[in-house]
């Protein structure tokens, strides 16, 4: 990575303000980033970035890929950021510049409809709890379950988890409270959310730890602040989720 990349980045800089912002997303994450019947992306993230693009006077381009491909697109410099309800954690902060939090996702316990014995984390002790590999729940469970009394069952993705809860293979799982009702409705699975949120996930947009990354992050932060203040975020959240998570 010698002179060629340096010259490339210096020329990048000149028209950096005109270049499109490229963003990766899965396109298969309900309400945040979905692919509609016409094959077009829609969702909360899409609306937010369309607005950010307008305000920064930059074109927005989307790249879809599976998880963790969307993250690697960022690492390999193909995209500028990732918009797909990415949770901020200390570990991830080492690797990326994150924007300020733009969304809080509360996570609740989900159990089978017939289960009436679980209402809080304490009720999970000695029970089987299904978690996804990319859940950030782990960072919270060090505190919530310091003695490791819960039996954790990990899954690669969420496909089978609600079904296992409904069937009784799992006692519970955690689900973003934004999604519980839709999943229940669309899948017809006999599950329900119980108790208060166990934890909330702070979502932000990650940028590469480079000069350009920091620059763009700062610009986006500026816009996000505006959007929050002007109520755009609230309006968009209501449109997709029916409530404002920032409250």
């Amino acid at each position, binding site marked *: *990575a010698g002179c060629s*990349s340096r010259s490339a980045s210096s020329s990048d800089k000149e028209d950096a303000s005109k270049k499109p912002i490229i963003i990766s997303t899965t396109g298969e994450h309900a309400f945040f980033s979905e692919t509609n019947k016409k094959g077009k992306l829609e969702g909360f993230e899409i609306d937010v970035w369309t607005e950010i693009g307008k305000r920064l006077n930059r074109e927005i381009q989307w790249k879809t890929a599976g*998880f*963790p491909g969307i*993250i*690697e697109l960022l*690492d390999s*410099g193909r995209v500028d950021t990732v918009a797909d309800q990415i949770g901020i*954690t200390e*570990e*991830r902060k*080492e*690797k*990326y510049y994150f924007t300020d939090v733009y969304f809080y996702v509360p996570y609740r316990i989900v159990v089978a409809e017939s289960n009436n014995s679980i209402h809080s984390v304490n009720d999970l002790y000695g029970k089987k709890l*299904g978690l996804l*590999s*990319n859940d*950030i729940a*782990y*960072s919270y469970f060090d505190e919530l379950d310091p003695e490791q009394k819960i039996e954790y*069952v*990990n*899954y*690669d*993705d969420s*496909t*089978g988890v609600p*079904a*296992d809860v409904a*069937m*009784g*293979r*799992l006692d519970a799982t955690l689900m973003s409270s934004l999604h519980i009702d839709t999943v229940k409705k669309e899948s017809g699975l006999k599950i329900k959310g119980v108790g208060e949120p166990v934890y909330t996930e702070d979502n932000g947009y*990650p940028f590469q*730890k*480079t000069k350009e990354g920091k620059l763009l992050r700062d610009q986006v932060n500026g816009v996000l602040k505006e959007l929050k203040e002007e109520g755009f975020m609230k309006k968009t959240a209501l449109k997709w989720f029916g409530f404002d998570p920032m409250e």
Partner: protein
Amino acid sequence: MDISFKIPYFISMFPKILQLFPETIKVAFWAFFLSLFFALVLAIIRQYKIKGLYFLSSVYVSFFRETPFIGQLFLFYYGFAQVSKTIRSMSPFTALIIALSANYCAFMSEDIRAALNSVEKGQYEAGLSIGLKPLSVLKRIILPQAARIAIPGLSNNFISLLKSTAIGFMIGYKDMMAIVSMETSRSYRFLEGYTAAMLLYWGIISLLSYIQTQIEFRLNRIY
């Protein structure tokens, strides 16, 4: 910096991945021996067109070879679970072994069939001519000769199987790859994780390949 690759993290992955090695190897070995056995049966039925069973076995091979494994696994583990209590209370470990065996035996039967086919007809006839029953000819004459031809293909399948155990993570079974995916989705250091996994798999499977080479060498010596 153009490349972000954190060596200490990369190194820290090795012991973590290796911890799950038993989970990978347990499923792989069980599934391999089960599927080898059934593959042998299927191959023999199909190569010698054994009446009554030929059609059934052809449909079996066709279905399991030609549909995606993930579908087979889901249908078995989630679909059939709705009608069978046994399956509903089955552990992911058992379910994974069953699904993998059912799938791989279809593929492996094709390798074995080709190998049986490579043995000259004269060997079979010679076996019959001294009074051996067809099954004995198969066991004592044909299979030992077919083995050296079947081994590379079977070894391909065993290697795939070893890696396929990762799919178990879809139904909650954790193998070596699962830990990579868990660890890296926390840190988002996927390259480090996958590279570590690659080296480990390479090391482990190299050992198996070495055994393959040795067996092949011994079997080929006399031809």
